[in-house]
């Protein structure tokens, strides 16, 4: 049931990324809605689900992007796994810690993604600091807002507490 939920969430994020994102965000600022979903799943469901959702989402993105299949998958796998570890080891319920996690996850994803491309001598990225910082901020804001919206749903907190106690056991 959880797997279906993750697949649906990634599919919705991909659909929004390829249709709505280009109308909502203009100029050089870009968002990665799929990465936001992977970090969200990792934080709420643990490292195993986080890494599997990262693998699935990253591989699908790679297959749709004329890129080397596996590089985005590897980056998102790592991000999903670490987000899952952070979600189980630390209390990440306030907006600021969530913002920091989403921001850091985007930076880590960019470092791994661009690092692998440069390492394999496939692409060069010039000076991407401003672009990565912009994307990390945008992703973090969307991630925090997504958390707030989901928690507004009836019974969301109870389900989350139950899920967390199951993970601890």
């Amino acid at each position, binding site marked *: 049931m959880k797997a279906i939920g993750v697949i649906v969430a990634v599919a919705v994020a*991909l*659909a929004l*990324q*390829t*249709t*709505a*994102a*280009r*109308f909502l965000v*203009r*100029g*050089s600022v*870009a*968002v*990665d809605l*799929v990465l936001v979903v992977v970090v969200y799943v990792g934080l709420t469901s*643990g*490292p*195993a689900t986080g*890494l*599997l959702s990262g*693998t699935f989402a990253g*591989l*699908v*993105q*790679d*297959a*749709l*992007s*004329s*890129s*080397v*299949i*596996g*590089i*985005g*998958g*590897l980056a998102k*796998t*790592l991000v999903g*796994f670490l987000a*899952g*570890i952070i979600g189980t*080891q630390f209390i990440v319920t306030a907006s600021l810690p969530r913002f920091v996690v989403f921001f850091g996850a985007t930076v880590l994803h960019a470092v791994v*993604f661009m690092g*692998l491309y440069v390492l*394999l001598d*496939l*692409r*060069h*990225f*010039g000076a*991407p600091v401003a*672009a990565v910082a912009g*994307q990390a901020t945008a992703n973090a804001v969307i991630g925090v807002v997504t958390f707030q919206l989901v928690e507004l749903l009836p019974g969301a907190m109870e389900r989350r507490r139950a899920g967390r106690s199951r993970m601890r056991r």
Partner: protein
Amino acid sequence: MALLDIRQRSGYLFLAVTLGQILLISAQVNSKSGVPVIESVTFGIFSEVQRGLSGGFSGVRQLWTGYIALRNLKVENEALKRDLAASQVAVQEQRALADRTRGLERLLDLRGHLKLNTVAAEIIGAAATPDFRTLTIDKGTRDGVRSDMSVIAPAGIVGRLVVPSLRSAKVQLLIDRNAAAGAIVERTRAQGVVVGGGDDRLRMEYVSEVFDIVVGDVVVTSGIDGIYPKGFIIGKVESVERAGGAYKRITIKPAVDFSSLEDVLVVLTPTPAREAAESVSE
């Protein structure tokens, strides 16, 4: 210690998945073939989903803009009538100017530009990841499009076709990091290569320091790359710096606003350079 305990199930799973993907990457990097089969198949399936979603999204947008337009319809109608009257006068002036130009062309025995065979396409999706600058259009191989055909808009060059499927195709925008086009500065005829930077600006490389390039110079396609037809606008020079070596560092603002593109034209007519290359290979 429990933080990164490799003995945990998720730790093994992480290692297995990571190893699998490293093997996957290795297999592709060593390969020199064209588009991977998995990419082509996945793109073909997903483009159909994009087509459906794009239709729904356009419908919602049209409904919204239609509602806003209705509220200001009377004012807008009057403004449009005034614009139409002004445009009709302008058309008359342009027609007179065109007649005079045609007469001069005949006098000078100038050859007219070759008419390009194009097919109009609607944009049905954007890139799945912000690290690549691509678009999906609703025309595919059954409409006669194929790889490396150029894609243009009324404002100028958009990009080139990279992955065609039966009913849709992926277009690599000129601003993508892997994109490039042969270019020429219209005023000074200085040649170079325009490359994308992944953001909303282009760079023109390999332009010698000896050429006089100023801000505002128009940069057009040179046609030597075999993809883009000659003479189409790429953009305007935004900044020129001395790079220190033999070449200038030139930044170009693209003529096309890539964030608001909705319709494009795919050029079906091969460029002379491509025709020559194809005749040699045959």
